[in-house]
Structures are given as C-alpha cells and as structure tokens.
C-alpha cells in the first residue's frame, strides 16, 4: 500500500512536470473569462430564444443572463470538446513510458505491474478531478465576477428557477457527475494507452470512439434504440440531471452506476493487457 501511494505520488509529479498537462488549465483560464466578458458585453442569444419560447405567458423583469446561466451552458463542452484535455494526459500516461523506454527503469524496481497500472490510473483520476473542478471554479467564479450572480433559470420541461445558494450546490453535484463522465473518457484512452507505445494513437482512438458513440447516441433514428443502452455516451447527460426539479436521484444513480461500470471494465482490461505485455522497447 505504501509503495502504491509512493508510485501514485510520483505519477502525479510526472504528470505535472509535463507541459501538455497545462494546456487544459491555460486554455480554461484564458477562454472562459473571455466568453464571460463577451457575454457581458454583447449579450447572450439564449436569452432571446428563451423569451421567444415563453411567449406572453410569463413576464420577466430584468435579465435572464448571469454567470450561472453561462456556466450552465458551458457545461455542454463536456460532451466532445473538454475530453481533449483529458486524453492529452490519459492517452499518454502508459504509452508515453513505452515510447520513451522508461518502463525499463520503472518495472525493474520491486513494484508489481498491478501497482504501476493502478498508480497511473489513480493519477489520471486525480488529474481529471482537478481539471473538471478547475473548469467549474473558473466558470462560476469568472461568471459571477464578470457577468454577475443571481438566480439560475433553466428550461427543463418548463421553467425552473433556482436560487443562488441552491444553484451552487447543484453545480457542485453536476461537476462531481462530470468527473465520472470524464473518467469514462480517461479510462478508455488509458486502455488504448496500455495497449500501445505510441502517445498519439490513444488520443485519436479515444476520439474516434467518442465521436461515433456520441453521434449514435443523439441521432434520432429509432433503429438505433437497440444499441443506445450499450453506448457510454448515452449516459453522459447525467451531469445536467441536478438542474431538474425534483432532482432525479434514481436516474442519477442508475446512469452513474453504468458509467462507473464502464470505468471499472476499461481499467480491468488495461490491467489485463499490461500485465501480459512484453516490454521490448
């Protein structure tokens, strides 16, 4: 256990010693406040769309747009765009060592392959957790500072107005669920990374699977209903569930369980592959 913790610690050190790790953090730090500023300066088209959909039934005083609303919409990047920051690290964490030949100095220590894979997997989880919550903090923080706070108005089978305090709690839950979603992406690229010694392959492979799975999940063709339950992207919308009223705890639990099962399967297959792999590089 002590060795596993040491291995995990040094895997985190390795991750944060590489410049590619900071691409996501830097992009979020620059891009999100810019989006917030532009929204504040030029408005948000969704406000007009929402007002049009309400028609004459509701009279709203003031503006719908605040930092929470923009943060809420920004969470859509979790589907396809944000995973890029995840696979940049998780896709390279195993394959990168194979390509660099460093497994030769790592695996000749009194450490088992189970410990190496698990330490790397936990370090991947740590990075995923950090970057998802970093997006959350920057998004909500810069949103409140630049656009302003207030109630969050979301459209979910009608209008739902959430107070600022409740919104923060629901965002917290949403970002926790987003970590689970991103861990599915991370563990898939981790699996590809375990099977190869090329850092680019797992990134492309994961994205190919993600995009195809996403298209099959959202495309409105009835015939695809047969395969949808088996696609992990079908469950990716779980991070929007906390913004419903009442919170669908059953749905959240079911979808989270399926996503965690995917994570466990991808980790187990990675372990199986790597335990049998000959290190010839």
């Amino acid at each position: 256990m002590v060795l596993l913790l040491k291995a995990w610690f040094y895997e985190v050190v390795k991750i944060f010693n590489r410049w590619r790790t900071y691409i996501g953090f830097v992009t979020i730090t620059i891009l999100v406040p810019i989006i917030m500023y532009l929204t504040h300066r030029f408005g948000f088209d969704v406000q007009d769309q929402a007002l049009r959909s309400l028609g004459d039934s509701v009279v709203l005083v003031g503006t719908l747009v605040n930092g929470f609303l923009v943060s809420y919409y920004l969470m859509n990047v979790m589907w396809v765009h944000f995973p890029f920051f995840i696979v940049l690290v998780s896709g390279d964490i195993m394959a990168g060592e194979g390509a660099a030949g460093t497994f030769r100095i790592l695996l000749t220590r009194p450490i088992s392959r189970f410990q190496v894979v698990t330490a790397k997997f936990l370090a991947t989880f740590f990075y995923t957790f950090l970057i998802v919550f970093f997006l959350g903090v920057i998004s909500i923080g810069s949103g409140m500072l630049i656009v302003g706070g207030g109630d969050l108005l979301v459209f979910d089978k009608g209008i739902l107005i959430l107070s600022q305090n409740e919104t923060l709690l629901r965002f917290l839950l949403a970002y926790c669920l987003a970590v689970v979603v991103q861990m599915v992406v991370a563990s898939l690229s981790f699996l590809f990374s375990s099977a190869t010694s090329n850092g680019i392959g797992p990134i492309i492979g994961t994205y190919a699977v993600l995009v195809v799975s996403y298209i099959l999940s959202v495309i409105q063709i009835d015939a695809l209903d047969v395969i949808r339950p088996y696609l992990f992207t079908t469950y990716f919308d779980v991070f929007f569930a906390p913004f419903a009223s009442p919170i669908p705890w059953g749905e959240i639990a079911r979808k989270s369980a399926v996503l965690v099962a995917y994570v466990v399967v991808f980790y187990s297959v990675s372990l199986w592959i790597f335990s049998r792999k000959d290190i010839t590089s």
Partner: protein
Amino acid sequence: MMVIQTNSLGKRFGDRWAVKDLNLSVEKGQIFGFLGPNGAGKSTTIRMLLRLIRPSTGTFMLLGKSLRDAGQHIYSRVGALVEKPDFYLYMTALKNLKMLGALSGGVDDRRIEEVLDIVHLRDRADENVRNYSHGMRQRLGIAQALLHRPELVILDEPTSGLDPEGIHEIRELIVALAREHEMTILLSSHLLHEIEQVCTHMAIIDNGTLVVQGAVDDLLRKTDFYVTEVSVDNPERAYNHLQTEDWIKDVSLEKDLIKVHLPADKRPALAEFLVRNHFKVFSIIPRTSLEDYYLTLLKTRHG
C-alpha cells in the same frame, strides 16, 4: 550461492525462438560476461530475468529464490541497466533518482549523493536529463542501478557511448563493486576485450542457445583452437610449410607474424617442426584472446 539460475528458459516471438532451453548459472561474487552476436538473445534473457518479458518456457531463480516464492520484493536486491539509459527527460537527474529510490523501497539523500559522486554527476544533478549527453545518461543509468545497494547488478552494454576515460572508470567500478562490495555482476557486452579484462566468468549465447559457459581463464586455456603467434626468420616459407600439415587446424600470416591455431599440447611439436625445418625461431607466444576464441567458436558453429 547461486545468484542467477535459469532452468530451460525460453522465449518465442511468433514462430521464432529468441531464447531456447537456456540453462545459465551465475554464482555469488562473479563478474559474469554475457556474450553473443546481435540478435543472439542476450537482451531477451536479461529482460526475462527482470520481468520485462514473460518467458514462454522454463523458470529462473534470482539470489536463490524463485519469483513465485520471493515475489516482486526480490528486485529490491537487484539493480539493472537495460540497453539505452532512458529517463524522464523533463525531470532533473536528482528527481529521477529520488523517484527510483522511493520505488526501490526507500533510499536516503546521502546515498543518492554517493551514487552521483561515483558517476561524477553530482555537480549537474539539478539539470534536466534532457540536457544530458549520451555519456552522462549512461553514467546516470549506472547510478540508478546502484542506488539501492543491490546484491546483483545486471548491466547491458554499460560503457556504450562513453569516452575512453569513462569506459576505464566504469570498468574499474565494476571490478570494485564485485571485490569491495561483494556484488555479483552480470555484464552483457559486445566488447570482447572488455569482458576479457573485467569478467571472471562468461557465457556465450548464439541463436538463442547457450554455446559455452565457465571461468574465462579455463575456457581460454582448454580451448582446442588455441592461437600461437610465431616469429621466424623466413615467415612466408614457414607459413607455406605449416599449411601442408594436417595436425595444424589453421594458419595465417599477418605482417611477418604467423598465427597458428592448434591445441595447447601441440605447441612443443610446433617448435620441433620449425627447428627441424631449419627455421630460426625468434619467439613462440600463446596468444589466444577472447576475440580469437569467440570468433573461432562462432565460425565453427556456423560452419
């Protein structure tokens, strides 16, 4: 004590056996040279011993224990440098060593400084390995192998890329590790004179199979194809004479020096033959080098 013992160890890649039925024995305190041409199976054998490659057949014991009995912990008593010295280039040498020390069961800072001193890298320990030359990385590779004071050190081409002074230092270090620190060294090298100078024992592997193993002195002394260098007054005529004799295995003429391949016990007969044929014999010197031995052995095997 037997430090390395392989029992019918083999590795197959597809249809090709990289190593087949290998029975290697290395005893405590030996500096054991592991020789063979490129692709002979040296690296595959070393990688199997270090768990980098899974054997297809056979078993092995390290420091008297099988991997099944001792588990991964046995590797806290083994240090290794396998082929190229690859490190985490984006980290400093010190950070690399600290990490590897921690994963070896814990190594204090003083020991890290000690090994950095041994390989003369202490002054540059805070530099990223990316900025290191090949020779410096090679020395750092040796440092990481010695970090946790192992009882068995496996070095694969440890002097590759070093300057002559560095090569000399590493050879002296290897001898000192065995003599002063009672470490057992398995040294794989292409440099035959390196093995000859440094090793007490050796094994030659060819096409994945063991050709010969034993003490270097014994192997060279007992060989059937001993080389004797002969200097006489008329080398060309002597060379022509010797060529016709069937009790001589092989003879060549290099710059007035005749090299005769014959068993050691036939050397008096050679002297007698030359005198009988009225040659003035200036010298008859036994000169079987490991290089002669190795090349002739492989030539004999390959027909």
